């Protein structure tokens, strides 16, 4: 699932989501970053950041929601 992730306080990353039901992703979904395997080639793994929905508040404890904060823009992509 591809998404455009805007961070609280500024900054943007366009990348993949993980641990997510594609149907549940919408503009404004709050997410947290997690370090995951991105590619594997010939047994060599490459790790980088992915985003996953914030579900229980223990990761990425949200601030009071600001307009435009932490938006996952776009929809499930692949």
């Amino acid at each position, binding site marked *: 699932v*591809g998404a*455009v992730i*805007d*961070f609280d306080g*500024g*900054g*943007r*990353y*366009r*990348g*993949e989501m993980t641990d997510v039901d594609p149907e549940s992703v*919408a*503009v*404004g979904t709050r997410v947290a970053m997690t370090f995951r395997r*991105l*590619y594997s080639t010939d047994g060599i793994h*490459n790790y*980088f950041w992915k985003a996953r929905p914030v579900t229980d508040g223990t990761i990425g404890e949200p601030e009071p929601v600001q307009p*435009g904060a932490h938006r996952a*823009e*776009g*929809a*499930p*992509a*692949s």
Partner: protein
Amino acid sequence: MTSAGIRDRVAIVGMGCTRFGELWDQGTNDLLTDAAIECTTSAGVAIDAIDAFWLGTLGAGNSGITLSKPLKIGYKPVTRVENFCATGSEAFRNACYAVASGAYDTAMAIGVEKLKDTGYSGLTGIRLVGDGTDPGLSSPAAFSFLAPSYGHKYGVDRVQMKEVMSRIAFKNHQNGARNPRAQFQKEVSMETIAKAPLVAGDLGVFDCSGVSDGSAAAIICRVEDAHKYCDNPLYVKALAFVAGPAAGPIDPEYDYTTFEEVVRSAADAYAQAGITDPRAQLAMAEVHDCFTPTELVLMEDLGFAERGTAWKEVLAGTFDRDGELPVNPDGGLKSFGHPIGASGLRMLFECWLQLRGEAPPDRQIDTVGAGRTLGLTHNLGGAPGEGVSFVGIVGTELG
């Protein structure tokens, strides 16, 4: 941005375009040869009469030899250019400048792509070596972001957005169904389009352009020479090109509902051509409908509809072949197909037919008969927030 432009200094005096599609029996050399022969025949000249060549291709070959060898051109200048999906337009733009400069009397711009037989469905081409952190979104994935972003910004719900997207595909298939050179020549129902298997996000199979083989070509000369070759040439009014800063993927200000590169290149082109109200002044537009939400956004970026209203105009039929401003009357990338390097020239080919009244009666647009003389071609490359854009305008009258 300022650009003086070369309005009314060069003219198109011949064109050719192969059928687009899954052409299993034709290779790159065959496609180039067919387009070039139709083009020179159309202008009534031999290939030897062309002074210089610009070849556009993303991946069908490197260097000018890709063209000089199959066409047996001999020892002539052949330049190979690449600028993402705007490659065909880039070949045309550079050929026009070469003639306008006086360096050559005649030039051919020709584009080609052979996407089938690569063992892969979709775009092939060069993948630059990165640091392993590139999420590597596919083109459908990158463009799929447009739909929910547009809907979110303008209050169009997901069901309505799907209807708007389907309506664009429906229209382009209707147009392609009347075009014997198109890859897909069947009308497709709204229901079939809407229920097609998903490719990325809310983009279904019918929301994506055709992956195809094909080639198209144009011969350009100075305006004062045009009638040596052709009674009714197309005059080049504007050529605008923009490569953006590609900051969208890291810039929170970018909202995935517009292509700033298109807005800028359109403004430049309209200034060059002296156009103030494109919707009323253009007879037609061929735009880069790589995916249905792309065409939706382009209607606003090109100034055909106010911000936030294009979705209503699409549903109202404004851009249908018999609408107020026909958009992609040849079927567009969606139905005519998208062999990358050929697409920009294929768009010009439709202007060549329609503006000069040579399109078959069953698909000739009414705006030309009503006195409009200008056609626009728009070619986009890259992805939302990180792209290049070409806007060209041609017309049948000087001044």
